C-alpha cells in the first residue's frame, strides 16, 4: 500500500536547540503508525512539523512528503490548502479546536464549506452524517448543542468527526485520549479506528501510552531524545523490544501479577535537548552500555535477525525494513532485552 506520509531525516530546532534530530518514518494509507516516547522526546514537535504547525521560532529541515507533495517547512499559505482536505488533526484537548460560542454542528458545517463550494444545506447534512459516523446518538439534535453541553468523550468524538469530515489522506492525533477515562478512552479509540477506516485515511498516533500504541497501531516508532531508537510492527516492537530504551519502558509496566513486587526501572532521567551527552543519548542510562556508545551516536539499522513472527506480507519489501533499531550493542544484547532492567530505587 502507498505511503500517505513519508518523513525523511526531519530536523526541528527551537532557539538553536535541536529537539528533533533526523527522524524518518512512513504512514501508509489505511494504517496506523504510533509515534511513542516520553515527555521531551520530540514526538509532539515532530507531529507539529508534519502538520505545518511548528512554533514560529522553530527551524524545520529534512523532507516531509504528504501524498507525494513536499511540504517540509512550507509556509502557511501552502498548508492552508492541505489542512482539512489532506490532513486532519485530533488534538489532546478537544476544547482547543472547538469554539465555545458556536454549535458543534455549525462548526463542522463550516469545516465542510472551508474546502470548497458546498451549499449550506448540504454542508449541514454532511456535518450531521459525520457526527453519526462517530457514534453520537440523535446527531441531528446534538448538532445544535454547544461544546460545553457535550461530555469529554463526546467532544473528542466531535473533533474526530471534524478531522475526518473532508476525507483527508492523513489524520494526526496527538495524545487523543490522554485526558479521558479508560472506558471512554477505549470507546474513542474504537470510533477513531472505524471512522478512519471508513474514509481510508492513514493515522499518525502520538502517544506515551504503550498499551494504546500496542493495541491500536500497525507500526510503532519509538523516540528518545529527538531520535528514533526503534521502529517496526507494533506487536513486535512491544512484544520483543530490541532497543534497550524500548525494553526498559516495556519492563517497567505493571504486569499481569498481583502483589506489588518491585518493578524494573530505567535509572536516571532523559537528557535535556540543550545538554545532550556525546554518543548515544541513552548511554548514561543504559545497562548494556559499551565502549562505542559514549562517542558515536548509533544510526537506525536493520535488525540482524528478523523476528520469526514477521508477517509474510511485510517480507520482500526491501525498501521498507520490517524492524529497525539504533543501538551499537544490538548484537551483544540478551535474547530478552527486558531482562537487562532490574530494580534501581535511587533517582
Amino acid at each position, binding site marked *: 500500500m502507498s505511503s500517505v506520509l513519508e518523513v525523511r531525516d526531519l530536523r526541528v530546532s527551537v532557539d538553536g536547540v535541536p529537539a528533533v534530530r533526523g527522524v524518518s518514518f512512513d504512514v501508509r494509507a489505511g494504517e496506523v503508525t504510533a509515534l511513542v516516547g516520553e515527555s521531551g522526546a520530540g514526538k509532539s514537535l515532530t507531529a507539529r512539523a508534519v502538520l505545518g504547525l511548528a512554533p514560529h521560532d522553530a527551524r524545520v529541515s529534512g523532507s516531509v512528503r504528504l501524498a507525494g507533495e513536499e511540504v517540509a517547512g512550507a509556509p502557511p499559505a501552502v498548508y492552508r490548502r492541505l489542512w482539512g482536505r489532506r490532513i486532519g488533526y485530533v488534538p489532546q484537548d478537544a476544547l482547543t479546536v472547538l469554539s465555545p460560542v458556536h454549535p458543534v454542528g455549525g462548526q463542522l458545517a463550516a469545516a465542510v464549506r472551508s474546502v470548497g463550494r458546498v451549499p449550506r444545506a448540504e454542508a449541514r447534512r454532511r456535518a450531521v452524517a459525520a457526527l453519526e459516523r462517530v457514534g453520537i446518538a440523535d446527531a441531528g439534535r446534538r448538532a445544535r448543542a454547544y461544546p460545553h453541553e457535550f461530555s469529554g468523550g463526546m467532544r473528542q468524538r466531535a473533533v474526530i468527526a471534524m478531522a475526518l469530515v473532508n476525507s483527508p489522506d492523513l489524520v494526526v492525533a496527538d495524545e487523543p485520549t490522554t485526558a479521558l477515562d479508560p472506558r471512554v478512552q477505549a470507546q474513542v479509540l474504537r470510533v477513531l479506528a472505524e471512522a478512519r477506516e471508513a474514509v481510508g485515511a492513514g493515522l499518525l498516533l502520538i502517544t506515551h501510552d504503550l498499551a494504546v500504541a500496542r493495541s491500536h497501531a500497525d507500526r510503532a516508532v519509538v523516540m528518545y531524545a529527538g531520535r528514533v531508537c526503534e521502529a517496526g510492527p507494533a506487536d513486535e516492537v512491544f512484544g520483543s523490544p530490541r532497543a534497550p530504551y524500548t525494553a526498559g519502558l516495556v519492563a517497567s509496566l505493571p504486569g499481569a501479577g*498481583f502483589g506489588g513486587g518491585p518493578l524494573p526501572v530505567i535509572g536516571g532521567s532523559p537528557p535535556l535537548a540543550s545538554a545532550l551527552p556525546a554518543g548515544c543519548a541513552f548511554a548514561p542510562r543504559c545497562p548494556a552500555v559499551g565502549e562505542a556508545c559514549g562517542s558515536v551516536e548509533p544510526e537506525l539499522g536493520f535488525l540482524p535477525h528478523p523476528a520469526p513472527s514477521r508477517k509474510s506480507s511485510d517480507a520482500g519489501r526491501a525498501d521498507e525494513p520490517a524492524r529497525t533499531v539504533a543501538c551499537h550493542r544490538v548484537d551483544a544484547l540478551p535474547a530478552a532485552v527486558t531482562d537487562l532492567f532490574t530494580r534501581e530505587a535511587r533517582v
Partner: protein
Amino acid sequence: MSPLLEVTDLVVRYGDHVAVDRVSFTVGEGETLALIGESGCGKSSTALAALALRRPESGSVRFAGQELTGLHEKLLRPLRARFQPVFQDPYGSLGPRTTIGDAIAEPLRVHRRPLAGRVAELMDLVGLDASHADRLPHELSGGQCQRAGIARALALGPQLLVLDEPVSALDPSVRAGILNLLTELQERLGLSYLFICHDMALVRHTAHRVAVMADGRIVETSTVRELFTNPQHPYTRELLDTEAEATP
C-alpha cells in the same frame, strides 16, 4: 482489631447534586485499599471527606477509633498529622516559588515539630538527593517532584496516606520508580494507603483490596484477586473488559 480508617454511610452533597451516596469502606493497618471509578464518580469527594477537608452531609469518618465529622478544627489538627494526602499533579501540589526543602519543612513548622536534620532525613527516605533542597519545583523532573510531595506527606509521621492518582501524570519509566517507592515505604513504615486510581493494571499491582465506585456509590468491594478473577458487578466487569482490550 478495628480498622485504621472506617467510613460509614458517607454522603457528600454539592447543592442539589449528591456526589457521594452512602459510601462505606475501611482501610486496615498496613493495607492498601484502591478506590476506583471514572471522573465524576465521587472518588475525590470521598477522599476529601476522609481527610476531613470537606464536611460531609451525613455519615461517619472514624480514624483510629476517633470520629472526625463534626470535630472542631482545633481538635482535628493534632489528628491531621496522622493522615496526609499525596496529589496527582507533582508540580501543582508544591508551590512554584517555594524550595523543595521549605515545602517539606512546612508541615513540621505548622505543627511546631523540631526541624533539625529532619528534612534531609525525609529526602533520603524518598530517594531524593539532599542537594535538591534548595531547588524550585520547575528545576526538578516530574518524578523528583512527586518524591518531594511524598516526603512532605511523610513529614509528620502519618499512619495513612491518601494517594489521589499519584502516578497518572508521570511518564511510564518514572511511574515504576514511584510505585516501588510507595511499596517500600509501606513495608518499612507500616503505612496504610487509600489509593485513588483509574488504571486497572496499577490497581492489580498495588492494591490489597478494591472498592469500585460508580455514580457516587460503591458497587463492589473485594480483595484484589477476587475482583480480577471473579467480578460480581456488571460495571466492574465492564472496567475489566476495557483493560483487557487495551492490553492484548
